[in-house]
């Protein structure tokens, strides 16, 4: 019996202690006609670890590719071997939420260190222990802004069209049930940026917050200082959506404009979490100290034990569902502990200089890639704004067709902007430190052949 250790003698001894004749007797409170068995006939026979591993290894092999330049919110980075060797140690892997603090100081200290790393990277006062992912984190930030902005009575939040459309759609699906409206802010189609000018129609209106994405979906860098100051001048909070790698070299949201952003969220995946088909990732979430009681999710605090020794524990639990039930800040129960643990190890290994170096290579490689691709006839940058590590390009042909032909060559050459932005000849390409000069040349050569 896979993973069940009992011998026939054990079973007899246990039944005897219970005073039952058979295991079936233990289900005697369940109405007999409800009992299943019949419906399970369609399930396969169980197989051993060897057979299932072989099956899955064959499946995994099917999904291999030669080269990928896909980004769109998930990015390929080098992950030091130590990161997951340690994160999947049984002591981290098979522990649960640290309800018994004395027996969970390992996990609790890691979270405290993580909160510190995120606060320092974002330039904010406090961080929670992480949420599910960047997109659902944005939904939590939107709901949080409604509670935290006490000057506003609005249930509307301004959201730029240049935000990752997947963030927009997940956020919409989560907040719409609470009568929250996401109001679109258009972007400048020349620059690929959200301009303060395009916000003027919203001036003097009551919105709880403005979302600012740095970089935005097109990879473009926004004028975050001007946008932040505009929002604050109009009584709105600022929700920053950022890429954590970029923060090693870009102005942290805590320093945007005169007062800094109020809430910061983003996808933590670039910090040591594999692409892994989209998850598990983790969303990071940080805010100004004055808003901490409105923040959802687990938060760890440092305190002392009865002998005065340093220790860590869950704190501010009065915000959470297991205490406050229907009055909680969110229904979120756990965090993405393991992914967050991996990120803490990753950032510790790279340090400030290593992370800046990764960010620098991402940017430099993307610039180089754009130059190489734009050297091909009819390929040009879609927008004029400076970018971080992703860039929108227009092609002389239909983007979806070109990408499909590149995929036939085993090159995943970017994401089409046709469906989300009706830019049917445009693609979004990303490069990071994992690409060599040779990789970039291969892509350029392949694109040239496809377009010829």
């Amino acid at each position, binding site marked *: 019996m896979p993973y069940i250790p009992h011998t026939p003698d054990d079973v007899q001894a246990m039944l005897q202690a219970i005073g039952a004749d058979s295991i079936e007797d233990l289900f005697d409170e369940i109405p007999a006609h409800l009992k299943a068995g019949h419906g399970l006939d369609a399930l396969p026979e169980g197989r051993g670890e060897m057979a299932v591993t072989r099956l899955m290894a064959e499946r995994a092999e099917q999904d291999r590719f030669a080269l990928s330049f896909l980004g769109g919110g998930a990015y390929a980075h080098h992950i030091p071997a130590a990161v997951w060797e340690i994160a999947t140690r049984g002591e981290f892997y098979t522990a649960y939420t640290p309800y018994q603090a004395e027996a969970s100081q390992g996990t609790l200290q890691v979270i405290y260190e993580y909160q510190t790393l995120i606060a320092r990277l974002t330039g904010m006062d406090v961080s929670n222990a992480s949420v599910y992912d960047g997109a659902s984190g944005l939904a939590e930030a939107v709901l949080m802004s409604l509670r935290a902005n006490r000057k506003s009575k609005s249930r509307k939040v301004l959201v730029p069209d240049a935000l990752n459309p997947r963030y927009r759609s997940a956020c919409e699906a989560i907040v719409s049930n609470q009568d929250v409206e996401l109001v679109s802010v258009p972007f400048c189609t020349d620059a690929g940026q959200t301009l303060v000018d395009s916000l003027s129609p919203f001036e003097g209106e009551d919105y709880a917050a403005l979302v600012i994405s740095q970089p935005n979906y097109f990879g473009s860098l926004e004028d975050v200082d001007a946008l932040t100051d505009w929002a604050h001048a109009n009584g709105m909070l600022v929700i920053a959506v950022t890429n954590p790698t970029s923060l090693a070299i870009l102005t942290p949201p805590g320093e945007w404009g005169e007062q800094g952003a109020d809430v910061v969220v983003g996808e933590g995946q670039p910090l040591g979490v594999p692409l*892994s*088909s989209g998850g598990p990732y983790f969303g990071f979430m940080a805010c100004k100290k004055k808003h901490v009681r409105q923040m959802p999710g687990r938060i760890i*605090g440092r305190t002392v034990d009865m002998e005065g020794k340093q220790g860590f524990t869950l704190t501010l639990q009065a915000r959470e569902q297991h205490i406050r039930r229907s009055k909680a800040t969110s229904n979120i129960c756990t965090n993405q502990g393991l992914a967050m643990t991996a990120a803490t190890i990753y950032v510790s*290994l790279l340090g400030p200089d290593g992370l800046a170096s990764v960010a620098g290579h991402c940017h430099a490689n993307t610039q180089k890639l754009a130059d190489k691709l734009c050297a091909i006839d009819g390929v040009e940058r879609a927008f004029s704004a400076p970018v971080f590590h992703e860039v929108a390009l227009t092609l002389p042909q239909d983007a979806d067709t070109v990408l499909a032909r590149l995929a036939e060559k085993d090159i995943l050459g970017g994401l089409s902007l046709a469906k989300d932005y009706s830019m049917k000849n445009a693609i979004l390409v990303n490069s990071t430190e994992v690409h060599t000069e040779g990789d970039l040349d291969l892509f350029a050569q392949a694109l040239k052949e496809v377009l010829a």
Partner: protein
Amino acid sequence: MSNETTLIFQHSRPGRSATAQAPKPVSEDQLSAIPASLRRKNKPGLPEVGELEVVRHYTNLSTKNFAIDKQFYPLGSCTMKYNPRGANRAAMLPGFLNRHPLAPASHSQGYLACLYELQNFLKEVTGMKGVSLAPMAGAQGEFAGVAMIRAYHEARGDDARTEILIPEAAHGTNPATAVMCGYKVREVPVGKDGDVDLEALKEACGPQTAGLMMTNPSTCGVFERQIEAISKAVHDAGGLLYYDGANLNAILGKVRPGDMGFDVIHMNLHKTFATPHGGGGPGAGPVGVSQRLLDYLPTPMAGLDEEAGDYHWIDTDTLPTSIGHLSAFMGNAGVLLRAYFYAMVLGREGMIRVGEYSTLAANYLLKRLEAIGCQAAYPERRASHEFILTFAKQAKDNHVTALDIAKRLLDYNQHAPTIYFPLLVPECFLIEPTETETKEAMDDFIDAMAKILEEANTNPETVTEAPFTQPVRRLDEVKAAKELDLVWSE
């Protein structure tokens, strides 16, 4: 166990780093396209440490945790069963690990095949008509389920339904979820035998009822025997029935939520399907639905073109009535692969054994604990895969609380059960041994409990001041909340 109390930041020395891990710095020239006004002025205060220091620090921290791999971990309602190592290895295969979430279907057939088969597996084992794997945790599965209930009523123009009914013993996520979906919560009392107060429920049902959320076996650790009458009362009022799959382990292969009349369910794969809890996540909370909610399932889902034999994504363009995406991509994909591995290893017979042996273990542990003087909350009832003890007597007679006993268990190298939940039983333990623990492991727990009960009588300080053997003694939680220290500063 390690005495590491130093923070990683305190190991930091300017100029030190794990140099093998980062590429050489780029020149300022290569960054010249980024306007100076957008550049960071001061480098972030991240730790500057070597690779060995990092490995040693986090390895040492890990040893300060209790974990299933180290201890019996009978945390009620959390199903802390063995997490097969093989599942982890399979999910970490390079082909899966390096697959970008937006890779075209042509480069995703292997992954999609696993997801498609897992969907079907979960459909069969729960008796539902459709399954979406998208929700990233139990609480998000609950959200998806209640959002579908709302979408269903709204599509029928039935917009007077403003209330979700929830038994008072329910998990806190249930009421919190109902509110996130824009509903009011009405709690329904639970009777002395652990079953829902059916008369009170019938009175609470009406044209304002959108649905009822419940777990079965309930959070009282017993099977809700009136489930069919409850189902009828809610359905007669026009409401839908939501199954919280927190306790699915108890009935796996025995009774299917679909056969009990539930319209929508969520499953916790980190419980029932043995994926790791990871110190608080990531989990996965797939949802299953009956026929009438099929159109509202969250996307994306895996589909199969049976003629061509090709797998594809089902998304909002082909299912526009869906409640939509709950994450940027495809939920906690790696967790789903681990659950798929587990399902394939167990197969049909294995599924049936889960319910059987988890129930056997719980009933054994209950009877033995009663025999050493523990008080069951529902002594007349069978245990499901878990059960409740109450230490109200010890609290009154010896001033030894459930919390004290839990802390003392740590000294005996046993993880404490869930305490003070459900809220309606005073001084309670919710104990769930799972099917993967040996009889000897349970016997050790029983021995520890016997010693602690004796200590409570003879030497109560050893219990009320416990633990003594852990890295820290009891922590000052009031100080933690009052003098907030959430981020370290030099």
